[in-house]
Structures are given as structure tokens and as C-alpha cells.
């Protein structure tokens, strides 16, 4: 997995400055901030707002609208399982249950030791090779218990 930088105001400002030539730069900025720090820290919001001449409420509103933007650091491994209809038809729910049991958390949570974040994703567009998952950005098709167990074992769960 990627090592993230510690948050700093200076670095946040430089990320913002690198995007101000774009029309409507806020979304690319938030993606870049999350890529750098692993999440969008609360402290980044007033900095972005100041540099873009927006209100803090506006920036906060955008950060909280989109599922992708994290407000807390994620676990060291991020496992996202698709739970949309095509994956449902191929039994994704029993895989979710299996992972929940092994990890001891509900889907949407992070293990107490910070090893794994386990989340729902709606549709990776791999609907003819379902069920599918994304593990640290890597996509996996035809997911079954054996493949899932291998992924979970790698996390130490």
C-alpha cells in the first residue's frame, strides 16, 4: 500500500495552487489531497476555502457529498466489494457476510487495529465477471470464497 504524507497547510496550499488554472477546480483538488494524505483532513477545509475564495461550508458540503472522500484515515488495506444487482445475482452477499465474520466488523467499518477497511462499492463495471471487488485499487473479478480468503489472509485477519 501507499505511504501517505503527514498533513501540512503548506502542502495543501501548493496542491490548491497547482489546480487553480482549471475551470471548477474543487473536485480535482480534493482527489489530489486525498491522494497525498490518504483522506481529506478537517484542517484542510479552511485552507482550501481561503485559497479558492469559497466559504468553508461550501467546501465541507462538497467533501461530505461524495462517497469517495474520506474524512478519517482508512485502514492499511482497503477492500471494496461490489454489492449492486449483477453481483447480487452471483452471490456477493454471502461473500460480504463471510468477510464480516472473519474481520469481526460490519461492512463500512475499519478493524480496531487499523489493518483493514471493508466497504461497499456500487458497480465496478465488471458485471459479466461477477462478483467483483477492488483491493487497494486493484480490481478482481469472479470473486469466490477462496479468493476472498486469500485476500483476507494477506491482511492477517
Amino acid at each position, binding site marked *: 500500500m501507499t505511504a501517505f504524507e503527514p498533513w501540512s497547510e503548506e502542502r495543501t496550499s501548493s496542491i490548491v495552487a497547482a489546480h487553480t488554472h*482549471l*475551470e*471548477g*477546480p*474543487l*473536485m*480535482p483538488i*480534493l*482527489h489530489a489531497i486525498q491522494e497525498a494524505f490518504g483522506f481529506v483532513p478537517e484542517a484542510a477545509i479552511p485552507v482550501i476555502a481561503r485559497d479558492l475564495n469559497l466559504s468553508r461550508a*461550501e467546501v465541507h*458540503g*462538497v467533501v461530505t*457529498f*461524495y*462517497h*469517495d*472522500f474520506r474524512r478519517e484515515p482508512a485502514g492499511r488495506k482497503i477492500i471494496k466489494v*461490489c454489492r*449492486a*444487482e*449483477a*453481483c*447480487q*445475482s*452471483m452471490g456477493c452477499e454471502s461473500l460480504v457476510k463471510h468477510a464480516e465474520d472473519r474481520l469481526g466488523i460490519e461492512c463500512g467499518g475499519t478493524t480496531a487495529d487499523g489493518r483493514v477497511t471493508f466497504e461497499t*462499492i*456500487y*458497480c*465496478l*463495471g*465488471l*458485471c*459479466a*465477471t*461477477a462478483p*467483483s471487488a*477492488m483491493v487497494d*485499487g486493484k*480490481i*478482481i*473479478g*469472479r470473486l469466490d470464497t477462496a479468493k476472498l480468503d486469500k485476500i483476507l489472509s494477506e491482511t492477517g485477519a
Partner: protein
Amino acid sequence: MTIRIFIPRDAAAVACGADDIARAIAAAAKKAKLKADIVRNGSRGMLWLEPLMEVEDNGVRYAFGPMTEADASKIVASLAKTPASKIKHALALGPTEQIPFFKKQTRLTFARCGITDPVSLADYKAHGGYKGLERALAIKPIEIVEEVTKSGLRGRGGAGFPTGIKWKTVHDTPMGQQKYIVCNADEGDSGTFADRMIMEGDPYVLVEGMTIAGIAVGATKGYIYLRSEYPHAEIALNEAIRNARAAGLLGPKVAGSAHAFDLEVRMGAGAYVCGEETSLLESLEGKRGLVRAKPPLPAHKGLFGQPTVINNVLSLAAVPYILSEGAKAYYDYGMGRSRGTMPIQLAGNIKHGGLFETAFGISLGELVDDIGGGTHSGRPVKAVQVGGPLGAYFPRSHFDTPFDYEAFAARDGLIGHAGVVVFDDTANMAKQARFAFHFCAAESCGKCTPCRIGAVRGRETMDKIIAGQNTEANLAVVEDLCNTMKFGSLCALGGFTPYPVSSALNHFPEDFGRPAQKLPAAAE
């Protein structure tokens, strides 16, 4: 002699191990001292066969799949002595284009997908690419718009609005102001992957289609709003855009003409509602993806308040063919008011899942039973959801419905983006109805009350029905909520959530604790 070996870079192939297989092919070729040119192509669309390896022999491509690293190594090693056409192997499938699933298709939009190296501009041009732009530059902008109108092309994103009319509206807005072309590549419907496949497998066709749109309406800037779940498409699109720019096909003088047009890919952030066009525009502007009330239409006041053409990937990708071959060539395919071809996606619990491009008019049963081969599990088909999470569930008794916008609407369904998700008889339709509400609740933008509150109330009520509490009284609540959402919501998310719910209830009442429907004998 160099042998050309193809192994896709398409996400579905990669998700099933295509990258590892590409490495195994390279290693095996080196070991066998075989000169091999390994091409990372798009997918041929026969996704149950992925990863599908193809080997060229005398200009014919032979398919092998689904590949494992061991099988690929073995086949490549034997190529040193035996030509691909003569290789005997359990996974040898013969010439790719003779496989019935492929042979039965009419590929206009996907003509090149899987054949070329997706990011090679030379390959694209060698296979008829940029002929549409050439013709567009030779005629007047209004003639481009007329050509698209005459082709009968309708918005492939789901709504089916005539593309030419949208273009005409933007064309007719005063020149001299900034206009935009926006491509909706936020393909969030479960069971759909055609946009992803074309962006990964033939990105130039989208780049060319958007360039033509820009010239037609006088727009100089285009955005592709791509969902973040598609990282492979982002890579392919950006590579294609860079190459097109370097070749002067994007930039201040498109192909040496007086027209300027350039493109940028923007990533979404996991919000399904941003597939709704006005929500998408808000998101592109850097705001919460709240749906806008219409009017004003995006054609008049779209991105940053400027006149904007916003079209789905498949609509824009159909344009180069329409320009190069003429409107009539496209219009001659199809039925009724559904003209041309539709890239249909067969998904879910299906034996032969994949991308099947064909003229409108094919029946749902033919798609599921004949082309798709029935379920993957081998159990009977119970229901088919067409058109994504907002599409209706159809039972077998509706399998005679032809693939046509109006025919689906007449049966309280929709084509949407043409995803077909198959469920076997283990599916519980009350749970599917509950999921429809749950999904709407999770993805609602929150602007209008019927969607924001109705979805949550619907989910709660479905929980009670599933638990067997006051079934009839609670079903009356669900039916009432469906009515409110259908007629009171601002956009299709709240407005169409009743389709999967009502269809599940009407066709499969036994799953909701109501007596089963009496089916006509012929239907089962």
C-alpha cells in the same frame, strides 16, 4: 517471422488475470525463442472467455480462453513449431470471429474494439478512424447536425432523447460565447459496462465523436466526466487524448482547420446521482452533485451557465460512423423509432455474459436464452432486470418484448443504458425491491423530498413486509410511496426507483406474501 499475440488490457480481462497472463506469454515466448509482438487490445466482449488470448495466423486471429498462466505458457511454447490454426488444446476456440456470440453481432460503434491497439493512433486510422471528422470538416456545421438528426440516433444514456435535436439547440445559440461538449461517462448502472469497454478498447472513437460535436455546435472545449471506479478507462483516455493532441487532431487547429477543440478528463467521486446530467454539471463545476430543476435546459444554460451539449459515451461514439457512412446507413438498422444499433450488455447470473451490439428489435428472450445461454448457475431464469437499478424486473412471460424504447415502455419497463442482469430462481424479489429503495436512499442527492424521504420510508416498509408484519397494509404504503416518488421526484433517481419495486411486486407477488399470479400456460 514475428507472431502477433493479443491479450486485452480491458478491466474485465485484467480483473481475471490478463496482466499476469501477458507476463507469462512474454516469458514463454522468450524461452521458446519466439519473436512475439504482444498487443494489449480491447476486449472482444465475450467476457465469459476472458482472459481471451488471440494468436494471429495468416491474417486470421485464433482464440484461446479463458486463459490461465499455465495454459498460455504451454500454447505459446508450442507456437514455435505449430501454427495457431493447428494447435490442439482444450481451450482452443478456433477463429475468434467465427464464435457464434461474435458472429451474430452488428458492430458499428464497437467495430474496432478488441481488434486494434486501443491507444495506437495509426491503428485507429488504419481501421477507418477519423474518416468521420474528415467528412465533418468538409461540410457545414449545420449539415453535421442534420446528419446526426437524420440518423435517428437517440441518447444512449437511458432517456432516449434525439441527439440531433440537442445539438441543434446548442448550434442555434449565439456564436462568440463559450460552449461546451460534456460526455457523461458516469456509467453507474449495475449490469452496464459498454462505456467502460469502448473507453478502454477504442478511446479515439469517443475523442473523434466529441470533436465532431464540438465543430457542429461551435464548442471549443470538451469534458469527459468519468466515474472513479474506472481507473483503466482514465489511463486509456488520457493516453489517447495526448496522442490526438500531439497529432494536431485536438488543439487550436483541429486537423489543420479553423476549428479549435480540446478535451479534458475529470473524475467523479463515487456518487451515482452524478450520472444525471444536471447533477453531473454541478459536480464538474466543483459543487455538490445536486440535481437542477429544468428548464433552463443544459443546451441553453449548462456548464458554468453556458450552452452545453451533454451526451452519453455511446451516443458520442456512434457519431463517427454516422458521419463517415452517412445517416441512412445508420438509420437502416433498427425498428420503429429506435434506429441504429445498441451495444447490449449481458450480465449477472448468465452463462455467456458480455457485450452484444445488434440492431434494435431483438427479443429479450433471444438475448437471454439463445445468445446468453441461460443462467451461469444452470438453474431456471427467474427475472431479468433491464436498464440498471432503476429498470423494471421482467419475468419470463415478457421475454417476447423486442429491444426497443417504446416496446419496453409499453410494458412498464425501460431499456436505459441496455444492461441486462439475469437472476436465477434463488432470487427473492421482495429483497430486490428493498434493495431498490436502499440504493435510492444511499444515492439520493437530497434535493427533493419524495426521493430523499420516500426511499428511506420504502426501505423501512419493505423490511416489515419481508418480516411478514401487516403485509397488505404495508404493501399499500409501498404502492403509495411509489406513486409519490414516480410523479413527485425531480429526476429519474427518485422517479424511476418505483420501476424495480412495482415490477417485482406485480410479477412476483408470492415473494411479497401475496398469492402467486396465475400465469398463462404458454408463459412457463
